[in-house]
């Protein structure tokens, strides 16, 4: 609903789910334990989350509806961090489980299997909510307006409908439903701080498979995915997510807009993107000067600063690889960490199982990531914008789950330790030069490609697919190549990072890593070639400062993200560029 009407990809939806569970826990503690109060408490929790939704919409989203899609995504990720901190502060770090009231503890016998009563209730809640929404959408004026806005919001605005109210109401309703989901999940599980990011990837998959903006589609897809997971656990317990992913790939290959989705309405009135001018001489010189200064860093910096600098160098290359496909390529990824992680694991596995030296490991990293990028890219580049972005997130979650669950090979949560650099690079200063060289070299190659005919072809496909086809450019091939190149360089950065840290963990593939990359690119400015370099330094510096000096660092980080999105809608380097080069 929220995406259909407002076109905002809401990362914070998982947070609403989590809040629903926590609020239900608190509310149900204070209510009598009869069935009616219990139901009322759950609805109350959903309503409370709806109110939080109103606050988020009015204070934040309303100001950024006109901003680029990704800025909205980032702003909502800021909300994720703030809600996490708030939940930690209010409810503490421990999981909260609800002792079920007596009337809920019963169970049925179905074919000799015990079936909890609560699960039976849940079976009916879904259809009831769906029926309620269906009535709302077909029988009320509000519902008809929502459907109209899903199809063509400009037209609805032109007809004089109060957009502000409509958007707020839809967002609140969507948040309340997420809260209801969380509250309903509480009795069978617990309220915990991992719920938000755990559910959001699944939610994205369901929405994409069902078709963006289609509520019945979402319901159908939720059933389908849940069944696959349920049977998957029985048939192939280790790879349930892989099964889900395969089904999703199958659905989208046949119906690229999801089960019940329609092609998105044409976008209108987007500002044309800026022209890429050749680098001015002074900027190139400044780049070389900065490189020279950085090379001299070990002479002045201590061990900690050097470690941080190495980390920044790795992540700069990571950000540059994402920028390559996002900026000129126009392909947005929410899960670029998949390739970073694949690169890191390639190095670690080569070390652990083949006792390969670092030089070989650093070759394996981009190779493995590039291979997976080529295979996955072939599957998804035909999809349009947000669909593709959500699928990349799902792919990253699968890589993450594999690294987490395949304990025999990857060590699971304990990771792989002892991924040490070659003896000549053991010294911090030597490794810094290696990292700086590879990172700067990689960034230079990517930059060179952006200004090459191939890079221009990427922008051509992004700007006007129609014209690109008319002058003989095969959009699919160009985008696939861009995706593969981006994966390759992300893999190299991941491999480098693995040797820098000496170990590899599933967190390298987790959502926050993907968000790091997005933050760095967007902070720097998507349409600025120097952007990812500036963005990586700014983001890493900021995170490091906040984590070290501020107790509530997530809150501060979230607030900082939101402030940056509101202040610099074109990124830092983008803002600087606008100042320096007003249209030549």
């Amino acid at each position, binding site marked *: 609903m929220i995406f259909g009407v407002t076109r905002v990809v809401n990362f914070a939806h998982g947070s609403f789910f989590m809040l629903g569970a926590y609020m239900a826990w608190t509310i149900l503690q204070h209510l009598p334990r009869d069935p009616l109060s219990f139901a009322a408490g759950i609805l109350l929790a959903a309503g409370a989350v709806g109110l939080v939704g109103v606050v988020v919409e009015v204070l934040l989203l309303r100001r950024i509806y006109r901003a680029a899609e990704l800025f909205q995504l980032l702003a909502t990720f800021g909300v994720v961090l703030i809600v996490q901190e708030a939940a930690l502060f209010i409810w503490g770090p421990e999981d909260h489980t609800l002792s079920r009231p007596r009337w809920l503890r019963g169970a049925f016998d179905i074919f000799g299997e015990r079936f909890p009563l609560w699960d039976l209730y849940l079976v009916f809640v879904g259809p009831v909510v769906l029926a309620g929404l269906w009535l709302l959408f077909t029988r009320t004026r509000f519902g008809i307006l929502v459907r109209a806005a899903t199809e063509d919001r400009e037209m609805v605005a032109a007809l004089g409908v109060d957009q502000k109210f409509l958007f707020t109401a839809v967002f609140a309703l969507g948040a309340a439903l997420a809260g209801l989901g969380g509250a309903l999940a509480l009795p069978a599980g617990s309220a915990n701080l991992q719920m938000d990011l755990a559910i959001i990837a699944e939610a994205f998959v369901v929405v994409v498979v069902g078709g963006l903006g289609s509520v019945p589609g979402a319901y159908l897809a939720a059933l389908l995915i849940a069944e696959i997971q349920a049977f998957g656990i029985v048939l192939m317990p280790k790879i349930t997510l892989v099964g889900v992913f395969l089904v999703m790939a199958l659905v989208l290959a046949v119906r690229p807009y999801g089960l019940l989705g329609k092609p998105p309405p044409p976008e209108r009135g987007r500002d044309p993107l800026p022209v890429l001018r050749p680098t001015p001489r002074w900027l190139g010189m400044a780049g070389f000067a900065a490189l020279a200064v950085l090379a001299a860093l070990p002479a002045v910096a201590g061990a900690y600063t050097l470690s941080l600098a190495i980390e920044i160098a790795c992540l700069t290359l990571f950000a540059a690889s994402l920028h390559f496909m996002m900026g000129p390529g126009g392909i947005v990824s929410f899960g670029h960490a998949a390739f970073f992680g694949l690169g890191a694991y390639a190095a670690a596995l080569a070390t652990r199982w083949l006792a390969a030296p670092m030089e070989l490991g650093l070759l394996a990293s981009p190779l493995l990531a590039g291979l997976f990028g080529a295979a996955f890219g072939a599957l998804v580049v035909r999809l349009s914008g947000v669909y593709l972005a959500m699928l990349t997130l799902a792919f990253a979650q699968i890589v993450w789950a594999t690294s987490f669950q395949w304990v025999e090979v990857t060590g699971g949560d304990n990771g792989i330790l002892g991924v040490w650099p070659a003896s000549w690079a053991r010294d911090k200063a030597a490794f810094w030069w290696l990292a700086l060289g590879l990172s700067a070299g990689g960034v230079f190659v990517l930059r060179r490609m952006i200004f090459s005919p191939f890079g221009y*072809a990427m922008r051509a496909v992004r700007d006007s697919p129609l014209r690109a086809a008319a002058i003989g450019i095969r959009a699919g091939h160009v985008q696939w190549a861009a995706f593969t190149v981006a994966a390759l360089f992300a893999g190299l950065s991941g491999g480098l990072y693995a040797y820098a840290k000496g170990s590899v963990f599933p967190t390298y593939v987790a959502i926050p890593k993907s968000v790091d990359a997005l933050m760095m690119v967007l902070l720097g400015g998507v349409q600025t070639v120097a952007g990812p370099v500036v963005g990586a330094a700014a983001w890493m510096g900021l995170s490091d400062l906040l984590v070290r000096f501020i107790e509530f660092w997530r809150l501060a980080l979230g607030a900082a993200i939101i402030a940056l999105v509101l202040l610099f809608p074109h990124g830092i380097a983008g803002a600087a560029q606008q100042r320096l080069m007003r249209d030549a």
Partner: protein
Amino acid sequence: MTLLRVEGLVKSFGGVRAVHDVSFSVGGGERVAIIGPNGAGKSTCFNMLNGQLRPDAGRVFLDERDVTRMPPEAKFRAGIGRTFQITATFASQTVAENVQMALLSFAGRLWNPWRRAHTASRDQAVALLERVGLVPQAHRAAGVLAYGDLKRLELAIALANAPRLLLMDEPTAGMAPSERAALMTLVSGIVAESGISVLFTEHDMDVVFGHADRVLVLNRGELIFAGTGEGARADEQVRAVYLGSGVTSGGH
């Protein structure tokens, strides 16, 4: 000599027959206009010729080679250039770079990941811009051009593959009357100079009668007239369609 031959083209959308059994041909160096009221099937016809739509039946031959099922990318290589009703250019590239892209693509040099694109095929691009009078704008972003200039840019891009056939979908739509005459005079000059053929749709009858050697009239998906401009003006059926006899609707 026949350059383009169209045989029995058919396309339906759901139950609507948008184009029904349309056949015609375009000779070398000929300028042919497709006209007809809104909804007559002009754009559908056009989109089948350039490969955006697949016909349900019928065939298209370019120089006696069957190109019916070629996608747009391949038609570009086969020697068809095209301009769009609503201009489609690369907004984030300069005017010259837009033309360079078409030149590089035609030369098969687009996959080069290392060379500087900004200077590649620059002279050729400037030469094409010279033909359409856009050299003074070469350094500006295509995204900030005035509409008339965008139409000229499209023409320059469409000429980059040295086409034998130029497809122009409403080349003067949205332009001021004086601009229209100038653009079509430019097109006619290029045709006279290089001997390429032009097939265009158009609503402005002055443009049609002034710049088309032959006129095809479509109504409700069927070809009702093919002949000279004078002939079209004299034809009873065409007059009925355009003046509105009560049988037809939506004329101009």
